[in-house]
């Protein structure tokens, strides 16, 4: 940028040469040329020296490129670099902002999606828990019914067993009593009849 500006104006050497001519010419003019109106102005209290003025203009023409070369150009370059850096920084910041905006949008979208997924998952978990609860309740009810039926069967079995044992006990007691009764009442006559009855019915295997 600075090079382009330098190349668009007149060459610096021209300004230096013109300045040197004007500086030396003015100095020479101040020393050697005495104009009437200048003398008249000095008499009136106005010290005007055109030669010095021209010389100073020449000096300024010389100093201007130097100042431009040593101060203005580096300063412009620094400003340009700074501007470039700022532009780059702003660009990066803009990119980052855009990226962050995108990330924010992505995040918000993902957040929304995550919330939706979470809600769906929660709903699924709730449904699953409800289903599991119903299944567990059904299982518990079935087990309770089975246990109830098993207990009833066990009670019935025990009852039948107790009844059978009681009947056996009654039979045993009755037979023991019968045995004692018969033993007390069997005389020879009855014994003879018992043997006779036995002989009538006995079947001897060969």
């Amino acid at each position, binding site marked *: 940028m600075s090079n382009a500006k330098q190349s668009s104006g007149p060459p610096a050497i021209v300004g230096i040469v013109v300045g040197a001519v004007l500086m030396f010419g003015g100095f020479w003019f101040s020393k050697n040329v005495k104009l009437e109106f200048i003398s008249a102005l000095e008499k009136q209290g106005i010290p005007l020296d055109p030669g010095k003025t021209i010389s100073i203009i020449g000096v300024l023409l010389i100093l201007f490129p130097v100042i431009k070369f040593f101060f203005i150009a580096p300063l412009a370059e620094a400003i340009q670099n700074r501007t470039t850096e700022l532009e780059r920084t702003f660009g990066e910041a803009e990119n980052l902002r855009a990226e962050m905006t995108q990330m924010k949008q992505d995040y918000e979208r993902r957040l929304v999606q995550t919330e939706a997924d979470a809600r769906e998952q929660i709903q699924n978990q709730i449904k699953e828990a409800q289903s599991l609860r119903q299944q567990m309740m059904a299982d518990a009810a079935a087990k309770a019914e089975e246990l109830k039926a098993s207990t009833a069967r066990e009670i019935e079995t025990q009852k039948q067993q107790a009844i059978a044992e009681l009947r056996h006990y009654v039979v045993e007691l009755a037979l023991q009593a019968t045995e004692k009764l018969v033993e007390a009442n069997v005389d020879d006559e009855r014994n003879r009849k018992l043997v*006779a009855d*036995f002989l009538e019915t006995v079947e*001897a295997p060969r």
Partner: protein
Amino acid sequence: MDQRVAGRYAQALFNAAEKAGAIAKVEEDLREVLASIDAHQGFQAFLMSPVSDRRKKSELLGEVFGASVSPMVVQTLRLMIDRRREAEIRPMFAQYQELRRNHENVLHVVVTSRSEVPGDIRSRLIDKLAAQTGKRIEAEYALDPTMIGGIRVAYDNYVLDGTVRGRLARLRDKLKSELQSA
């Protein structure tokens, strides 16, 4: 007790008796010998003792029974004593009886009762058993005071239980069986 040793002596004696036509006589002699041994405890102890001299046992046996029983019985008993088979004499007699019964188609039954079985009942019992088994019946009557009534007839591997206790036992089994099936 192993019956094979007694069975061999019994078989040998039975063969000799059969050949001599003295099966019943030999059995009667054996029964007499055993009765005499049982009747005299000292004689029995001497005869059955393993420390008694075999020669003296044999001589004593000849002196006591030589004149009253058949020679083949005496010879058999002396042979058993010589071979230290005194303990086999009674089993040998049982085996001899078994051989004789088989030979004569006789069925030995043991009739057990609480009191003596009357004669007419005995006759009816023997006749019925003979008719049903087809064998001649040889009954041995035993008394069992613990019986309530009735009789029990045992032979071979069979028991015909006509006792009161047996009937009650069958009634008990029947009632229990019906209770279980009910």
